[in-house]
């Protein structure tokens, strides 16, 4: 920070540790911030679209992640610059809200910043640029609404939903079997969706993965998969028409919470104590048997003695099941979680058509499948894949697809992908720009130009000549007055996205534009950066 001197040449110390603080202000600050934002966008640019590339990221403790999901990449990059952090948060908030389009939003923000830089060089006031952008974003959002289409789906006709999820998955590494995964995602969401309230609680969808097998083996289970096995190796591996007791109490003698001591001073007393303990075990198992349970799932562990007894009485049991899983099992099977044996009644048992233990390949790992449940409001997606990275990436991709399906249930409007929506917006924003007097007109026009960046990046990533392709498509859109033309990334032969069935959700797209504008505005508004220069 520049020092101020008084009349006698002594410096003022106005701020604490003034000498150690760096200060950037005015245009310099804006330029610095813009270049930081652009740098982040540049990293993600190549990940956009169906032919986008993946990034490999290594965390400090050696874990490797391979992904193409914008939010994940940025999260793992661990950026330090404040403006870059804003971009990270931008992508994260798109992830929270929509779940998809996390790369696109950052690329768009980068493009907007790049355009703003040019305008700043011309001497346009940053706030005027920001205001112009805001107007333009509103125009674009309205236009999207205008070109969007409603599409009907029902529980029986899920094809449109599947198509949209396929668009999302096509940019991921799993696009080999996008059809299968998209169907899984849609069915899973529909299973847990509350269509009446248009609410989907994604927590009811459990995504579980296991290394081994092929991606094609990924399946949707109308029930729960628990990464646990029977407590005793000799217990039956397959139970049909299971009645499940879901317990949160251990198979142990109950312990009072108050501190207690038992004075044992005679052999007889010790004997009684011992007998009583055994009686507890006996009673517990008997109680379970009495109410008709054929399977016990317990949140806690149990004694070897109890285990033996259970085995002996032919009552299969699973121990150490986590709280969340326990809850999901309870929801799926329609059972109630029972906190103590006294409360166990026949009505509180959950019912499942089939419970089986499945082992995989040659490994000793086994998992417990609880299927054909009374109430299939909780489902599990079980992912198989060649290696751990692959499974993690599939999980992330499926999360995106699940979010897309959820968004469509909330709002069933779609726009067409492949950059067609952006191009169409760009055309309409540019046309509208001329109507605005004042400096904002320039900003609005720049906004339109920035919108072209997304199709351009798409084309570039596909190995097409970006400018040729984008201009060709743009002119086609205007000539035929059809907003469905986009970039033919997969070389299908037509660039009509409607025919290619490339859909994106309307809210996802709108959100992208609004969020990107918001962050760009924030960055443009900063004209003073004060940092401890030790950074």
């Amino acid at each position, binding site marked *: 920070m520049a020092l*101020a001197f*008084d*009349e006698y040449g*002594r410096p*003022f*110390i*106005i*701020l*604490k540790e003034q000498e150690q603080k760096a200060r950037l202000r005015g245009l310099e600050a804006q330029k610095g*911030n813009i270049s930081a934002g652009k740098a982040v966008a540049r990293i993600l640019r190549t990940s956009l679209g169906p032919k986008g590339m993946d990034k490999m990221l290594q965390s400090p403790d050696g874990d490797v992640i391979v992904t193409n999901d914008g939010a994940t990449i940025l999260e793992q990059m661990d950026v330090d610059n*404040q403006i870059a952090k*804003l971009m990270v948060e931008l992508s*994260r*908030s798109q992830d*929270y*809200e929509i779940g998809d389009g996390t790369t696109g939003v950052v690329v768009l923000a980068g493009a907007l910043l790049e355009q703003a830089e040019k305008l700043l060089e011309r001497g346009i*006031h*940053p*706030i*005027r640029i920001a205001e112009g952008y*805001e107007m333009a974003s509103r125009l674009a959002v309205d236009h999207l609404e205008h070109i969007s289409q409603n599409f009907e789906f029902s529980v029986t006709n899920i094809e449109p939903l599947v198509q949209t999820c396929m668009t999302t998955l096509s940019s991921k590494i799993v696009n080999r079997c996008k059809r299968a995964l998209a169907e899984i995602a849609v069915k899973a969401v529909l299973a847990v969706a509350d269509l009446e*309230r248009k*609410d989907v609680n994604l927590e009811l969808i459990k995504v579980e993965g296991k290394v081994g097998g092929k991606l094609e083996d990924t399946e949707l289970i109308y029930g729960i998969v628990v990464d646990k096995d029977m407590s005793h190796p000799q217990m039956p591996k397959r139970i049909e028409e299971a009645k499940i007791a879901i317990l*949160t109490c251990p198979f142990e003698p*109950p*312990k*009072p*919470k*108050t*501190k*207690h001591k*038992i*004075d044992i001073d005679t052999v007889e*007393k010790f004997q009684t104590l011992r007998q009583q303990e055994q009686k507890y075990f006996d009673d517990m198992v008997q109680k379970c048997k009495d109410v008709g349970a054929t399977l016990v799932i317990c949140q806690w562990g149990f004694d070897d003695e109890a285990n033996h007894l259970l085995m002996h009485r032919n009552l299969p049991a699973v121990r150490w099941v986590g*709280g*969340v899983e*326990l*809850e*999901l099992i*309870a*929801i799926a099977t329609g059972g*109630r*979680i*029972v*906190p*103590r044996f006294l409360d166990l009644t026949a009505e509180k048992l959950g019912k499942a058509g089939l419970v089986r233990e499945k082992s995989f390949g040659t490994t000793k790992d086994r998992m417990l499948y609880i299927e054909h449940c009374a109430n299939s409001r909780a489902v599990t997606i079980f992912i198989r894949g060649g290696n751990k990275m692959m499974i993690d990436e599939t999980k992330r991709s499926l999360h995106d697809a699940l979010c897309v399906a959820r968004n469509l249930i909330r709002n069933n409007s779609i726009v067409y992908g492949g950059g067609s929506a952006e191009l169409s917006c760009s055309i309409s924003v540019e046309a509208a720009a001329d109507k605005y007097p*004042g400096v904002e007109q320039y900003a609005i026009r720049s906004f339109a130009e920035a919108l072209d960046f997304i199709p351009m990046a798409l084309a570039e990533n596909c190995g097409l000549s970006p400018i040729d392709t984008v201009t060709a498509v743009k002119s086609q859109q205007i000539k035929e007055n059809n907003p469905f033309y986009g970039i033919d990334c997969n070389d299908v032969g037509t660039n009509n996205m409607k025919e290619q069935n490339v859909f994106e959700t309307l809210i996802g797209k709108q*959100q992208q534009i*609004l*969020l990107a504008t*918001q962050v760009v*505005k*924030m960055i443009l*508004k*900063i*004209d*003073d*950066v*004060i940092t*401890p220069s030790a950074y």
Partner: protein
Amino acid sequence: MAAMLQPQIILLKEGTDTSQGKAQVVSNINACTAVADAVRTTLGPRGMDKLIHDDKGNTTISNDGATIMKLLDIVHPAAKILVDIAKSQDSEVGDGTTTVVLLAGEFLKEAKPFIEDGVHPQNLIRSYRTASSLAINKIKELAVSIEGKSLEEKKSLLAKCAATTLSSKLIGGEKEFFASMVVDAVLAIGNDDRLNLIGIKKVPGGNMRDSFLVNGVAFKKTFSYAGFEQQPKKFVNPKILLLNIELELKSEKENAEIRLSDPLQYQSIVDAEWNIIYDKLDKCVKSGAKIVLSRLAIGDLATQYFADRDIFCAGRVTEEDLQRVAAATGGTVQTSVNNIIDEILGSCEVFEERQVGNERFNIFNGCPSGQTATIVLRGGADQFIDEAERSLHDAIMIVRRALKNSTIVPGGGAIDMELSRYLRQHARTIAGKSQLFINSYAKALEVIPRQLCDNAGFDSTDVLNKLRQKHASGEGANYGVDINTGGIADSFANFVWEPAVVKINAINAATEASCLILSVDETVKNPKSESAQGEAAASAMGRGRGGPAFRGRGGRGMRRR
């Protein structure tokens, strides 16, 4: 300096830095001007934001004068006074924090040449005080009352005030949207002074327009145990029980110990404990409440018990939220489950657990006593929402102020220009030095429109001349800077309104601060710890407001610390 040839008398500890006299006054003024320069650019709808890192690596992006001043971490003793007035403006009226710093800086700047020319500071101070009281009376005279209007009308007027405040902030683009939200929220809590009844919840994600106002309470889903998902998530007209007890299986007495001599009694102890908790739960259920909230934990046992009986429960609700629920639903927080009567149960129209962004929120809507409101803010980044929260806080304060002291003045620099004109005119009637001082005070007031223009990139001299001409013509009292075209416009007609109290307070505080700084002619700086000294000096100066008296014992006063 004083000890040239005489034998030196060592009065202060070695290394103590003293400076006094005219030079000191000038030096203090310079420091204050430097600080005012730091916030200068944040003024007005075209004002910029500051990004400030602190030592811990936290970042704040803000446009709020008080926030910036606080984060700048100023140690210069005189400049600290400016921080204090910004703070006081913030706590008093909530808005206009940049204005007050800027005005104080400008008053001092105008005073500097006079001091250099040898005018006694006390003369300046006296004139400044006169000028400020004249200005305040003029504001009161010019202010327009909004009293006696119908509720609808009042609402739109208040929304205008809130919109003016918000226009300089990051969320300025959506000012109408937020202004009406703020007005609704403030009107909802009525005349109650408890500001914490307006809750602001921040949820990252989404865009600003997704922010919404809940006419009641909303809070994030608390930590829940297994079984929670089996509880119903929506009620219509539920009864709500508010507790401040743990519903968990636990030892009743902390240090109690039970000694058993007969192992057969073991079960009875276990049963006794279970009975205690079951008894509590049973009482909750019998009360007829459908929603049970507790500030303390609600354990897994209780969660499942309630789930079995179709009751919703949430434990570990924060104190604040629980108070708000109590105020909203008309319930009372209980510390025991004995004797639950209907009167202490709250109720609301609709309760729902809803997904907001990535979080699930418990939302109580349509509360009968309606004395609370919750604003759920959405936005792209954490810093963004933080800044939005600060901006809304300003707007809420403004609306509350306007509601109480329901007079408003035109903004956009109009009132400042009018005051300036009035003071200049008045100055002409005064004989003596005071005329000059009041004139310079009047000139200092012009800093607000000037800075508005500068920040917007307009030619400030040009606009200012137009404004002067308009105001001098006698009929343009409401004319201020038109931020969109770079010309001048009737602020009143364009709905750029500020509550009068903001301006009054700003002028008062700025004048006080500048008079205080002018009256100091000696600083004694103890060499030891700089930061501690800074504070000591500032507070000592606060005490030494008397001026001349301070001069005499300044040195001693300091050293007492």
